[in-house]
């Protein structure tokens, strides 16, 4: 072994993974298993519904998406509800981001009182269930401050998600090396200037993935405001069902609409992430 066995290793193929691993890793098998599982679930739901004698009326669903009447085309309740949900989510998200940034900056301020206030707020909000928070805003703070149900809903969603968003901000800000702070300060920047021009722009790429998750979360949790009858997608779904008794069809449709919206969002943001990755 004068050559230390190196030449005998040269060009030799690596051992193949075991047969069962290759079998389950192949694309065709993966897709087949996936289809079988989804098919079984769908079949279970269908036979279950048949078993309880459910009368499927899918043909009545399109009228809630759009209608062609004498006066012309008009949108149905579901798209109108979706727009309301998106509007509610966007306003809540913007407010939640503003509060979240404020709380994160307070926590990072280095002031004992700032940190105490921020941590107190976080623990309070994170440990109250969303539904209870909604009742607090609508039934307790509502009468005191004269909040209508729409404002109460927005405040509930904004406050609830601001706690999680502030943690995303904090992690994103902490991910920036301290040298960036020192460089910013050494050219005479104030702390707000350093945040605005140096730290936060660099934090964006750390914050995008969890922030997307948070938006998806917010859109989904916005459904809870249907319990105080704020006009949005879930509320409209409940209204349609109380008129038509088509709970299976309508809830499937509503779920699909939420799914489509959040999927589009996730795909859009993953493109944005790639763009940021290239710019670095």
């Amino acid at each position, binding site marked *: 072994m004068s050559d230390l066995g190196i030449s005998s290793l040269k060009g030799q193929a690596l051992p193949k993974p075991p047969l069962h691993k290759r079998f389950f890793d192949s694309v065709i098998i993966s897709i087949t298993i996936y289809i079988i599982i989804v098919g079984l679930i769908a079949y279970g739901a269908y036979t279950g519904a048949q078993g309880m004698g459910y009368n499927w009326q899918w043909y009545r669903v399109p009228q809630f998406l759009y209608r062609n009447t004498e006066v012309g085309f008009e949108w149905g309740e579901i798209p109108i509800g979706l727009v309301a949900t998106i509007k509610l989510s966007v306003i809540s998200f913007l407010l939640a981001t503003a509060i979240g940034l404020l709380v994160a900056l307070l926590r990072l301020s280095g002031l004992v009182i700032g940190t105490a206030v921020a941590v107190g707020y976080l623990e309070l909000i994170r440990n109250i269930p969303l539904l209870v928070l909604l009742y607090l805003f609508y039934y307790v703070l509502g009468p005191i401050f004269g909040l209508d149900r729409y404002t109460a809903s927005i405040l509930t969603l904004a406050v609830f998600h601001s706690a999680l968003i502030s943690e995303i901000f904090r992690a994103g800000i902490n991910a920036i*090396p301290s*040298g*960036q702070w*020192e*460089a*910013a*300060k*050494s*050219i*005479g*920047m*104030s702390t707000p*200037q350093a945040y605005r*021009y*140096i730290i936060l*722009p*660099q934090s964006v790429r750390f914050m995008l993935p969890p922030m997307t998750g948070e938006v998806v979360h917010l859109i989904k949790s916005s459904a809870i405001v249907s319990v105080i009858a704020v006009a949005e997608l879930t509320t409209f779904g409940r209204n349609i069902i109380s008129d038509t008794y088509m709970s299976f069809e309508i809830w499937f449709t509503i779920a699909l609409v939420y799914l489509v919206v959040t999927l589009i969002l996730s795909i859009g943001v993953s493109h944005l992430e790639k763009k940021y990755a290239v*710019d*670095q």
Partner: protein
Amino acid sequence: MTNPAPMIEVTQLDKFYGTFHALKNINLHVDQGEKVVICGPSGSGKSTLIRCFNGLEWHNSGRLVIDGIEVYEGAKDIRELRQEVGMVFQQFNLFPHLTVLENLMIGPMKVRKISKAQAEETARKYLDRVHIPEQADKYPAQLSGGQQQRVAIARSLCMETRIMLFDEPTSALDPEMINEVLDVMVELAGTGMTMVVVTHEMGFARKVADTMVFMEAGQIVEISPPEQFFTNPSSERCRLFLDQILEH
């Protein structure tokens, strides 16, 4: 040169990290246009000392006056001071999300509030000065270490500072890039800039230093002109240190 007001005046300065005595009774005097090179073993407090000079660290007792501004924690005019005192870091610390030109312009525009056109003119002037005008539109990550450090020097120069601090500016560089940075620093020394340089590049020190400072264990052990420092240092520790780093 008679100069009644020194650029840097350090009197009986002490600094602690918790119970660790990082700087002990530091006294130092730097005139306008003077070049001071600080050397010493790692952990001797060299970096801590010059980081005190622009308020990145705060001393606990003693007096520190830079260009007529009293430096202490909570000083109102600390941002004015930082605009007068440039700092070049070991790790460059360029802003990775900005182009080279934007790195140079952001300080003058946002801190000094000068116009974009004027900031760009200044930025291009100093980019010429550090010999990389062609890299203006690149991002820091696209440059070599030596080029990044030269951009960092230009970034400080763009603030039209009166004092430049260098914290081991060549320690993070590959050997073949050290000279391009030192050359720029030698040229800068020729312009009359007041410079305080923490470095182990003794060739550079011989070339530009007016005063050599040797630190160990948080204390200034020796302050002397380079000719005396390199040939006949008064302290034994300094002699040992020089023997170690000049051996090769």
